[in-house]
């Protein structure tokens, strides 16, 4: 009973976080902030769904495979998010006027 309640809460919150990532990808102003929405909110949503699956299907095989999924996702999401954000920044058209933080440009201004 407690397990069912926990699974229900975890999957609804996780799926809601993926929906919020979709809302963020529609509403945020430029590719940098959109990449931020995907790599944080959607990653947390998938993590909660995987935890729910572990609780719901509590066997050695499922837990091992789901732990591998979890580790693979948590290791690769920062890498792909960083590569994507760097590519978007280098394309030069990425920044919306409301995005005020520009650390590479600040560093260049400081050093020159």
């Amino acid at each position, binding site marked *: 009973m407690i397990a*069912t309640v926990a*699974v*229900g809460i975890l*999957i*609804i919150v*996780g*799926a*809601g976080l*993926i*929906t*919020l*990532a*979709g*809302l963020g*990808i*529609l509403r945020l102003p430029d*590719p940098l902030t*959109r*990449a931020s929405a*995907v*790599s944080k909110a*959607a*990653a947390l*949503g*998938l993590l909660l*769904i*995987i935890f*729910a*699956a572990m609780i*719901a*299907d509590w*066997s050695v*095989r*499922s837990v091992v*495979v*789901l732990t*591998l*999924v979890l580790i*693979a*996702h948590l290791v*690769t*999401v920062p*890498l*792909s*998010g960083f*590569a*994507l954000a*760097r*590519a*978007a*920044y*280098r*394309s*030069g*058209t*990425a920044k919306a006027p409301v995005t005020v933080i520009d650390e*590479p440009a600040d*560093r*260049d201004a400081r*050093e020159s």
Partner: protein
Amino acid sequence: MTTEQILISVALALVVIGAFAGIIRAAIGPTLADRIVAAELGFVATVAAIVLIALLLDEPVLFDFALIAVLIGFLTTIGLSRLVPRTKELRTKVTRQDRS
């Protein structure tokens, strides 16, 4: 249907809504980077949907597909982000040796 199956179906509907938002962004997104971000959201939604379907059908074999989908999504995002044309070079850090 049990309560758990109804909850999983609702969660699947929420994931599909998120993926649909990604499809809209991939269609209208002004730059190539927007479309790649939308593809990444699509991959995350796909993995979540596979895990939820595995719970709904009670088929633990489908968790293996989730593992494969995570790794394919990572490789695809890295590969696609190499395709964005660069117009602005990130300046490499000037060391003290270069200055003198």
